[in-house]
């Protein structure tokens, strides 16, 4: 337990350091001291940049990363499969479809209806996956189902955006499929927060039941775990957290895959210990990726999905190789 606490403190410190870096990175320039001073006083144009542009971006990166990390850990614990991840199994893509439909139907992008529509889309995606692959699906079934759902949701998203009367909507396809934190505001933070918090709460309470489930379904049932309720909590919690995140920043893949994978060694195989660590680890990873996209191309909006795929795809391939080899 003490080792866990130390890991969480280290991760929290990492998140804090990366948040600071995120606050101080951007095309407006300005040194660290001037930046922090402007953040404190809120004066002048730099104050506006720090408080209205970079601060919400940083907070949103933490929230989105935590959502994706938590969901990844919970889904992997529940499905007992290291490949289960909101992006790979199509939850993110179907959440994006839900959000796009709501926005194009006339819901303001900053209204609470958008995260709820994304939740609806995400639930649709989960239902399809569980229906297609079954709950005891092996890695292959899950991945194949995920490919199908992602492809379908991605195609429908592109279709909806192409049918929009707004010619710029078609350019948004990149945003919805690759994700970006550029130019978000406090409005987006407030839009996503309620549903995201609800998702976190639901997921955080699944830890002990998931521990029991890691011994097998029968063992878990004999220990008094209510399996249908656990399933509801994992599915609804992930869909709410990922849906709310996707509704404001688009679909960001691989976070839920990479983070639990990296941390599993440090916390042992216990889902209850992996959950908080994955939440913090996800926040750190998304912050790092968002700092990186601004360092590589400060003047442009390089999508987060590009960075995440660069990190995530090798991990993914490694996991497949290990699953196939039965190691």
């Amino acid at each position: 337990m003490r080792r866990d606490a130390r890991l969480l403190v280290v991760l929290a410190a990492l998140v804090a350091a990366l948040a600071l870096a995120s606050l101080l990175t951007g095309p407006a320039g300005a040194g660290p001291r001037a930046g922090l001073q402007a953040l404190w006083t809120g004066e002048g144009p730099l104050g506006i940049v720090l408080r209205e542009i970079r601060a919400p971006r940083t907070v949103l990166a933490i929230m989105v990363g935590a959502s994706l990390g938590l969901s990844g850990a919970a889904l992997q614990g529940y499905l007992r499969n290291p490949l289960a991840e909101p992006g790979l199994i199509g939850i993110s893509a179907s959440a994006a479809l839900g959000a796009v439909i709501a926005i194009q139907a006339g819901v303001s992008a900053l209204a609470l209806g958008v995260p709820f529509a994304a939740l609806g889309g995400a639930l649709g995606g989960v239902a399809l996956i569980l229906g297609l692959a079954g709950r005891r699906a092996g890695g292959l079934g899950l991945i194949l189902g995920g490919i199908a759902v992602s492809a379908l949701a991605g195609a429908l998203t592109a279709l909806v955006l192409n049918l929009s009367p707004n010619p710029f909507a078609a350019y948004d396809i990149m945003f919805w499929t690759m994700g970006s934190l550029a130019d978000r505001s406090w409005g987006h933070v407030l839009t996503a927060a309620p549903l995201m918090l609800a998702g976190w709460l639901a997921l955080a309470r699944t830890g002990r039941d998931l521990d029991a489930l890691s011994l097998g379904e029968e063992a878990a049932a004999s220990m008094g775990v209510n399996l249908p309720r656990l399933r509801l909590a994992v599915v609804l919690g992930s869909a709410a957290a990922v849906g709310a995140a996707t509704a404001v920043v688009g679909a960001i893949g691989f976070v839920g895959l990479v983070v639990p994978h990296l941390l599993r060694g440090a916390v042992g195989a216990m889902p209850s210990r992996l959950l908080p660590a994955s939440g913090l680890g996800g926040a750190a990873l998304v912050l790092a990726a968002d700092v990186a996209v601004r360092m590589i191309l400060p003047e442009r909006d390089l999508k987060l999905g590009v960075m995440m795929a660069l990190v995530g795809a090798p991990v993914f391939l490694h996991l497949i190789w290990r699953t196939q080899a039965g190691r």
Partner: protein
Amino acid sequence: MVSLRALTVLALAAGLAVPAGAEPPKRVVSMNLCTDQLAMALAAPGQLISVSYIARDPRASAMVEEALRYPVNRGRAEEVYLLHPDLVLAGSFGGPAVAMLHRLGVPVVEVAPPTSLDEARKAIAQVGAALGRSEEAAAMIAAFDRELAELSRPVGPDVPTAATWGPNGYSVAGDTLAGDIMRRAGFSLVTDRLGMDTSGYVPLEVLVMAQPDLIVTGTPYPGNSRAEEVLDHPALDRLDGRVLRVPDALWTCALPRSLEALAMLSAEAEALR
């Protein structure tokens, strides 16, 4: 045979180049938004037989009502050819359709889209000459010059700054009609201060740091897009600068009506003094 056809084409082209005394064209088709509007303003009754469909789009066209009186075309070589025009007006980016009309021997006058108010005068004269309506064009240019002189403001050292701010943060530079109009109204362009020679994307942070005295936005499209969300970012509300909405149609093409945009901006510059 071939040389004979080539000679005909040459003769036609020569006929266009010397409109004075020559028979003015009777069936004129315009396939570009900017030539559409100049032709509608200058042509004799019955002379213009079709304009492009974009002339009816209120977002882009400043002459929607007039355009409703003309059949529209979509700028395809086939449909334009079948209208049997004796003159086609096109922009300079006509592409394969214009190339094909040239091959078919249809006389085409290509009018470069004006990137300044000075070039607007040239475009008016060019379309007027092609239509055989040089007198009307001269009158239009004279009125244009009078109004332009009234609305232009001197450029001094302490002029206010302005930036256009469009979807994804697109901002025009001085080499465009909008940039020229803003300068004439007495503004210095933020894009100039940022060292941008051509229009491009300005990150939101950079725009805020530049603290423009005036932010000029256009007409938003119906439906939602993330590209346009940046126009409503709360950081812009915190800036001291004023925000002015200039309808895009006024300066998409250089027209006499472009001076309305100049008037709006001149009034802002006056208020900022």
